[in-house]
């Protein structure tokens, strides 16, 4: 069933001309005789729009500040001379405005005539035909003749810039309204565009008058969306024409969770336009969400279920029924032979909440054990552990909008402009308003280069020394009397606080004592601590640079301690905010993916919790936690773990120590992979079940602000089934009945069993657009800011955070530290983004190395570098960069063949086994050929791809036994 939410029917579809003003002061005026009262500071244009009166306009739009260049919006105001522009004129008490009369009509026609006289008149064949504001305005003002011909100087043969893969810039159609320039500045914060020249000669230029691709442009598309003409235009619209209907849905690329209008022609997706009504993004997006959706219709999509008896055999295409029966039979045989605990499954942080819930239910109810885990294990499991211990809930405390009230923003181990771009743009907006920025990161991230930002501090710490740094920051806060004693007394547990205070005050935690460890000068640490603690609102944002360490959990607790000690919890503008990587990391954790917790972070050992679940699931639940992913791998190699069901994850590429993972996967008797492509993991599988993309299913994602957003189906799944339907079929084949007919019914069951979700339903989501959990009796409309009155554990708990250096240390053999990260245009393992034109920005993973380390080794930019650690060896191309400090090298892991994870080790967080991706001791040297692993990878890859291509053609595979339940 297609479930449309038609954005045309709601308030966000109208352009009110200028942005909203938030003043509490109301101002009353009349417009064309109509009385209206609006917040002070509102423009006459917006007031008119709110009163239902449309004033013609070209250069104004309601997500940009008014500029007043086209004059088309002229009005008359009683008692004032001339024809002021309504977009730049603020309302005043008692004002009487006239928007239409003969004089105004004539004025507007004259203006339009001038515009049109320098504009190609090829409307009928223009890609924006029917979707062009210039055309609309010509109609609105009643333009009937153009007295000036094209014979004078004009711009009609200005060239088109086609360099960007997703949009083109046809300068001949530009009316120099500067909306694009303002969008790039105000909305995106990149400042890539300018208006060059003056008067008639003025034109839009990217960068230093370069092609878009060569400029600083990050291809967010804000300018394309802002352009009223077809000058900046999506190539997909040029190719396919203007879309005819649209559906609001949620981006599946990152934890920001942007809302989009999927604009369609039949079941063909023409373009994605960020939705103004989306509470996470307010109408902005990045290059991934807006443009990189082509993978959904890529030829590599798996379209039929496939099975094989061993991974050295070609695939055999089969029916869904056959694939499901084959899987169920294998799983049952293995359990009969090796025991109930010999099988397990992995849920996905890319799939919906409903799908994740169903997979863990399948494991706990149909497999009869708790061997469920999720890839969030490898990114944010320490967040769950650390925040639950200190604040009592495994989630961030704020909305994204809260950052607009922060006075100091402390960013630790995160790179928002690349990994959470839309939130990065919002941060930059706040920085341009003058907030202070502190970045604690080994790399000089781009946020530090925010144009027109305020004060910026960088603490370039050594990888692996986070806890030492956070302790020294807290030491300064406590020893300099910067604590919020009233908050601590009222809100925190006193005994734990006293113990923590005594610990943190010890001299060994001072910035001076720890300078040698962190590498950050003590006076900079003191300055940063003051900048965070002395302002009214200090907000902390952190990412995987915090969690992916041997002390990831300790660091999360250290962050919570610092926020509590300074009273920066429980209101807007403050808080502790994990920036989640994949789109549904928050949701997959919430939905009970971890082996020790049922949905809603309820421990399996708690009999009261199990009782409630058992009553609804009608099955006994194991009271002991199950295996985590790394333990599953170890047990597989040991021969006690034999089968795995993996939905929408690529553990063979994303998990550390690839060779170990490959050994584990090869040891399995049955690997069932459900994915949209033949991913790296699927090459080791016996069953391949086609997955569905976010465009092909209904459900919900939960973003980093705990916001539950609807995902709506806009096209049918290529292989006929949404992912949750496949899990349901598998459960039924295993003899555990599941009979959902729509994901909304799964959500109803989640609400029934999860105390923080009791108020959530699809009906309520439809009504509110989105909901931030907890949503229950005490918070019927959800909870934008957490911990306002108390913590779920009552009082906040300070945890002692002793710094324990990681065992992953540099040695003579491995003298450099490797740290990993991601970039804007690619997503995670890259399976989706690599299959789009986004690869034009990042076609390979490279190793960034500091000039001094390079010189020492005689390495030049572009050389092939052998990178080895104690577990493996790979080869990457070199890029010399001083974003890193000497002694630290950096790479990404978006391409499987580069094998970045062949070098990362199995070191992990002590509490959660989240791998220590951010620190690996390595050596780097110049080489001339790929590593042995890479050669092996290429061979294996080629063979597996052949097996896929020849699927069904090979008759040598044994017929599986006859069907039947």
């Amino acid at each position, binding site marked *: 069933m297609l479930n449309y939410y038609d954005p045309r029917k709601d308030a966000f579809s109208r352009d009110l001309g200028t942005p909203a003003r938030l003043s509490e002061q109301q101002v009353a005026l009349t417009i064309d005789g109509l009385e209206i009262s609006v917040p002070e500071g509102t423009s006459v244009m917006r007031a008119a729009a709110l009163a239902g009166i449309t004033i013609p306009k070209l250069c104004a739009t309601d997500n940009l500040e008014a500029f007043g260049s086209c004059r088309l919006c002229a009005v008359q105001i009683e008692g004032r001379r001339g024809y002021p522009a309504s977009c730049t004129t603020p309302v005043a008490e008692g004002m009487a405005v006239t928007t239409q009369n003969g004089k105004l009509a004539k004025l507007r026609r004259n203006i339009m005539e001038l515009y049109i006289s320098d504009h190609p008149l090829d409307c009928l064949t223009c890609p924006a035909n029917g979707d062009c504001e210039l055309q609309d305005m010509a109609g609105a003002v009643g333009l009937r003749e153009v007295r000036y011909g094209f014979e004078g100087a004009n711009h009609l043969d200005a060239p088109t810039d086609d360099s960007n893969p997703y949009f083109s810039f046809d300068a001949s159609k530009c009316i120099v309204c500067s909306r694009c320039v303002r969008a790039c500045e105000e909305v995106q914060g990149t400042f890539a565009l300018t208006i060059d020249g003056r008067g008639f000669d003025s034109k839009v230029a990217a960068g230093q008058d370069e092609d878009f691709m060569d400029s600083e442009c990050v291809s967010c598309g804000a300018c394309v969306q802002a352009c009223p003409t077809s000058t900046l235009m999506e190539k997909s619209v040029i190719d396919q024409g203007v879309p005819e209907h649209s559906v609001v849905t949620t981006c599946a690329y990152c934890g920001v969770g942007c809302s989009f209008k999927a604009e369609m022609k039949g079941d063909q997706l023409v373009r994605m336009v960020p939705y103004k009504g989306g509470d996470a993004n307010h109408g902005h997006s990045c290059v991934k969400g807006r443009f990189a959706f082509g993978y959904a219709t890529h030829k590599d999509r798996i379209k039929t279920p496939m099975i094989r008896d061993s991974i050295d055999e070609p695939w055999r295409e089969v029916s869904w029924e056959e694939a499901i029966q084959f899987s169920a039979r294998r799983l049952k045989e293995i359990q009969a032979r090796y025991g109930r*605990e010999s099988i397990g499954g992995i849920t996905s942080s890319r799939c919906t909440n409903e799908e994740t819930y169903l997979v863990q239910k399948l494991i706990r109810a149909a497999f009869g054990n*708790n*061997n469920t885990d999720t890839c969030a294990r490898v990114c944010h499991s320490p967040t769950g552990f650390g925040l639950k211990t200190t604040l009592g809930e495994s989630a961030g405390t704020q909305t994204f909008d809260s950052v607009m009230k922060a006075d100091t923003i402390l960013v630790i181990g995160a790179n928002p402009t690349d990994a959470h771009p839309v939130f990065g743009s919002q941060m930059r907006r706040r920085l341009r308003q003058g907030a202070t920025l502190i970045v604690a990161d080994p790399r000089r991230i781009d946020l530090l280069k925010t144009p027109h930002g305020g004060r910026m501090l960088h603490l370039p710490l050594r990888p692996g020394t986070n806890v030492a740094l956070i302790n020294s920051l807290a030491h300064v806060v406590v020893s300099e009397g910067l604590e919020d004693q009233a908050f601590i007394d009222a809100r925190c547990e006193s005994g734990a606080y006293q*113990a923590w205070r005594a610990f943190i005050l010890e001299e060994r935690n001072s910035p001076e004592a720890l300078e040698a460890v962190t590498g950050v000068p003590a006076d900079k640490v003191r300055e940063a601590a003051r900048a965070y603690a002395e302002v009214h609102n200090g907000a902390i944002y952190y990412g995987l640079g915090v969690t992916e360490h*041997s*002390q990831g*959990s*300790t660091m999360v607790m250290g962050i919570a301690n610092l926020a509590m000690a300074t009273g920066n919890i429980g209101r807007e503008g403050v808080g502790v905010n994990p920036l989640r990587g994949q789109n549904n990391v928050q949701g997959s954790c919430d939905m009970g993916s971890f*082996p*020790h917790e049922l949905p809603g972070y309820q*421990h399996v*050992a708690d009999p009261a919790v199990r009782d409630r679940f058992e009553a609804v699931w009608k099955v006994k639940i194991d009271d*002991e*936690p*199950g*295996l*985590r992913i*790394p*333990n599953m791998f*170890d*047990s597989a*190699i*040991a*021969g*006690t773990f034999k089968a795995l069901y993996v939905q929408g994850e690529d553990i063979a590429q994303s998990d550390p120590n690839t060779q170990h993972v490959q050994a584990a996967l090869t040891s399995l008797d049955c690997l069932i992979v459900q994915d949209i492509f033949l991913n790296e993991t699927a090459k080791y599988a016996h069953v391949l079940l086609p997955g569905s993309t976010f465009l092909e299913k209904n459900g919900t994602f939960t973003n980093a602000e705990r916001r539950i957003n609807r995902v709506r189906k806009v096209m049918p799944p290529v292989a006929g089934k949404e992912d949750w339907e496949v899990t349901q079929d598998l459960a039924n084949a295993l003899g555990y009945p599941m009979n959902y007919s729509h994901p909304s019914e799964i959500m109803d069951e989640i609400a029934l069993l999860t105390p923080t979700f009791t108020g959530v339903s699809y009906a309520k989501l439809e009504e509110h657009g989105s909901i931030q959990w907890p949503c229950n009796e005490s918070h019927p409309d959800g909870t934008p800011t957490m911990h306002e009155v108390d913590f779920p554990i009552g009082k906040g708990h300070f945890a*002692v955070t*002793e710094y*324990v250096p990681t065992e992953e240390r540099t040695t003579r053999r491995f003298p450099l530290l490797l740290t990993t990260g991601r970039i804007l245009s690619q997503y995670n393992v890259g399976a989706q983004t690599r299959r789009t034109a986004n690869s034009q920005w990042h076609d390979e993973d490279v190793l960034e190395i500091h000039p001094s380390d390079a010189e020492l080794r005689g390495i030049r930019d572009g050389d092939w570098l052998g990178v080895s650690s104690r577990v493996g060896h790979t080869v990457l191309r070199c890029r010399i960069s001083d974003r890193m400090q000497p002694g630290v090298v950096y790479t990404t892991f978006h391409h499987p063949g580069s094998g970045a994870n062949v070098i990362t080790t*199995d070191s992990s967080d*002590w*509490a*959660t*086994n989240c791998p220590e991706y951010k620190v690996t001791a390595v050596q780097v040297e110049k080489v001339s050929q790929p590593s042995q692993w890479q050669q092996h990878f290429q061979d294996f890859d080629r063979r597996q791809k052949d097996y896929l291509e020849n699927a069904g053609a090979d008759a040598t595979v044994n017929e599986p036994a006859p069907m039947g339940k």
Partner: protein
Amino acid sequence: MSGQGLEQLVKMVNQISANMHGATDEQAAEKVATHLQKFWARSMKAQILAYADDGGEDLTPISRQAVEKLREVRAAG
């Protein structure tokens, strides 16, 4: 489980012990035992208990105490 898997478990307990703090070693061991009981799978607990029975030579002193406490918790539970 093979030597490698066991080695990994020993490494894990010792790492937990190094990061869990209490006023006394006894308290720290208590916390480690609670952590193991709460987060480790049945098979992992069984293996580490068996390892301690066999002498558990690579366990740090706190880890050793913690495993003994884990044994008590499981006997009581």
